[in-house]
């Protein structure tokens, strides 16, 4: 690296912000389209990308671009809800474990570790089936698997904060424990929290798509990306690649933008890694 260091370091953040803004606009357009995107038209099935249909049409004659933008709204919204609930739950558990009594820590962490032992997607699937397929079940499944991820990482940080000199200093001043937690520990967790929220947002988008792909998330004809990719699979071999490729690229772009953002936040705290 040379003189352009600071600009070089900044552009990924700016780029990822711009991409995220584009997605939000896409999602907004999608919400205006609403059910229109699901209207089938047998007279124009499987048309390749053209000026009329920028991303072509699918097997039922629906415009792929419209469906991708509706899907953006669904993915961003549901992933955000899942991560918000998961983060809140995880933070509460982490504070109780990291700052509370040791028995509380043990009692709370054991089930967290048990849930973490399952591959995230598979447990979410099982929960979604048990609750009956649908987007709500999928979100509940994702939240259940995200809570322990937050709980474990934030707990580690909370425990570390206890040996930070400024937290000890707060103790020697005579601050009660709960006020130390709110005034000093929660801000201390801020960066980790941001990193975790961003990282889990990305993985929630993928998990949601995967749940729909295997058929326990969105039900047809909902324009969810995973369901669309599943639908595109049958056309892939026969040459109509755009049906399945388009929603995947949309998903990939979103997750990459989020991950670049995550990396940058992480790197600012710990310059050694990526």
């Amino acid at each position: 690296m040379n003189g352009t260091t600071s600009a070089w370091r900044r552009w990924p953040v700016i780029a990822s912000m711009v991409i995220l803004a584009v997605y939000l606009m896409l999602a907004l357009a999608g919400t205006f389209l609403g059910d229109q995107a699901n209207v089938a038209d047998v007279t124009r099935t499987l048309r390749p990308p053209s000026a009329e249909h920028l991303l072509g049409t699918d097997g039922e004659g629906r415009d792929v671009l419209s469906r991708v933008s509706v899907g953006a709204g669904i993915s961003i919204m549901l992933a955000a809800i899942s991560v918000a609930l998961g983060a809140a739950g995880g933070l509460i558990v982490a504070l109780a474990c990291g700052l509370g009594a040791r028995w509380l820590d043990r009692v709370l962490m054991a089930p967290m570790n048990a849930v973490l032992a399952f591959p995230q997607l598979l447990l979410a699937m099982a929960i979604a089936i048990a609750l009956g397929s649908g987007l709500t079940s999928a979100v509940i499944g994702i939240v259940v698997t995200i809570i322990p991820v937050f709980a474990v990482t934030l707990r580690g940080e909370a425990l570390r904060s206890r040996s930070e000199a400024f937290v000890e200093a707060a103790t020697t001043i005579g601050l009660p424990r709960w006020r130390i937690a709110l005034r000093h520990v929660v801000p201390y967790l801020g960066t980790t929290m941001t990193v975790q929220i961003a990282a889990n947002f990305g993985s929630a988008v993928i998990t949601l798509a995967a749940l729909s792909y295997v058929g326990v998330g969105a039900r047809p004809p909902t324009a969810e990306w995973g369901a669309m990719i599943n639908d595109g699979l049958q056309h892939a071999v026969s040459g109509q690649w755009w049906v399945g490729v388009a929603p995947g690229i949309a998903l990939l772009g979103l997750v990459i933008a989020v991950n670049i953002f995550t990396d940058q936040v992480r790197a600012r705290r710990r310059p050694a890694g990526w």
Partner: protein
Amino acid sequence: MFRDIRQRLLASAVTIVLASFVSFVVLRALPGDPARLIAGPLAGPETLAATRSSLGLDRPFFAQYGQFLWNFVRGDWGYSFSVGDEVREALTSRLTATLELALYAFVLAVVGALVCASVASFRPGFRRGLVRLFALVGLGSPPFWVGLVLIVVFSSYLGWWPGPSGRLSPQLYPPEPVTGFYTVDFALHGDLIGVSDSAAHLVLPVVSLALLPWAFLTRLLTANMADTAGQPYILVVRSKGVPAWRTHVRHVLANSLLPTVSSCGLILATLITGSVLVETVFNWPGVGAMLTEGISAQDFALVQSFILLSAILYVVGNLVGDAVNRMIDARLRTPGAAR
């Protein structure tokens, strides 16, 4: 040291027992009628009643859990209506197909990650940027979509490798099973056409499956290598006159591997999840594809056994990672040794 190991084993056992409890709760407490889920949507009233009594649904909650645990331990994992066989039978009969896929993917991911991470930490600039970009793509792509794209490009368009047609071309017969791996079995029988055909069928699914663990490992290793390369002992090694690449192989790599090995369980988890998502794309006749079918058929007995088994695999994988770490790192062999 032995006390340490005993504690690790104990903690792992507790996690497994709790995991079994979680999977029990998901099955029994969440759904309205567990018997319906277990027996399947097509079961008649008698079957339902039989299922109910075999599950002991009239008994107290913890007695039911005890029964479930006992059944699981003795290998009675229930009946899969979507396959039409005992769950255990169904899983074991398809295991080798998945294992062949997963093993090659594992090797590809690990070797690829070692090479790419070394390149990235050794050659800043363009090559590092390239590795970094690919890792980001790998982390962001759902494996089933990667499979789809690979089929579109390399099978439909370029025609280099076969698309979604399972483990073999239809005109070939599977080899006499020895290991269950087609590539190995064909080689053992000296059937070169078989070897190349089965290998060609492996390429795309293995790449789709390996991408995620490769990306994960590459990122982890690169971060660790950057960390290690900044350590004073690396400067000391360089001050001895040891060339940069040899320093990297001998010292940086060895020290970066330690934290990587302990994520063994996570790699296993990504492979298991990946096989569930990838196998259907390629019509691969393994346990993953079977599970996907089971999921769409709401075959709960199958799903439940599968997730519990993968949780156990995860815990065991972590234990193995720990053990390997212990072998590499002398510090861990001495109790209470700090850096």
